[in-house]
């Protein structure tokens, strides 16, 4: 299974109403076809009443295997269904690469 599929599968544990996993490795200084930089947008009722830090820890925990392996950058956007509605279904863009990572 590739990393994109593994991330998508593991984040089902958060019972997302909406889930978007984007491989942003192409934006970075890594070989073509790499799976090193990802952005995930997770909309779930499980985040209700939880601070951002706690929400991000939930996502990181689901993906601990990937984060200790090939994935070294993970942009995380977490919203409850109400927050997602307020944001009109948008998450922030990731910053551009500055070239520091070679691996």
């Amino acid at each position, binding site marked *: 299974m590739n990393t994109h599929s593994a991330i998508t599968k593991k984040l089902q544990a958060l019972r997302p109403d909406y889930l978007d996993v984007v491989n942003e490795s192409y934006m970075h200084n890594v070989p073509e076809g790499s799976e090193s930089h990802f952005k995930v947008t997770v909309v779930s009722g499980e985040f209700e009443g939880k601070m951002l830090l706690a929400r991000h820890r939930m996502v990181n925990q689901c993906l601990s295997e990937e*984060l200790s392996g090939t994935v070294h950058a993970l942009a995380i956007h977490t919203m409850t269904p109400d927050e997602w509605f307020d944001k009109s279904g948008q998450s922030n863009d990731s910053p551009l*690469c*500055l070239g520091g990572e070679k691996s």
Partner: protein
Amino acid sequence: MSLIQEKLKEVIESNEVILFMKGSPDFPQCGFSGRTAQILEACEVPFASVDVLADSAVRDGIKEYSNWPTVPQLYVRGEFVGGCDIMTEMYESGDLLKVLKPESN
């Protein structure tokens, strides 16, 4: 606690605002790190920074310290605040300034 963890604790607790990043605020080596340094500069607070690329023991150690798998990492008065996405959202909502400058609220 290992020596590196003790050293990290000491440096985190002796700086009111400290950012662990890749590169420096003037020459960030990663877009996420660069954005966090820019946010702190926009908040007009003095902050210390540590380049984790300069020492792999620090790079690995800081992830263990906060149980957080990625860099950058922001600490304010000894407390872990978050990484780039959390800082960006907190900055946009105004919550970051409240954490950085509690006396002005």
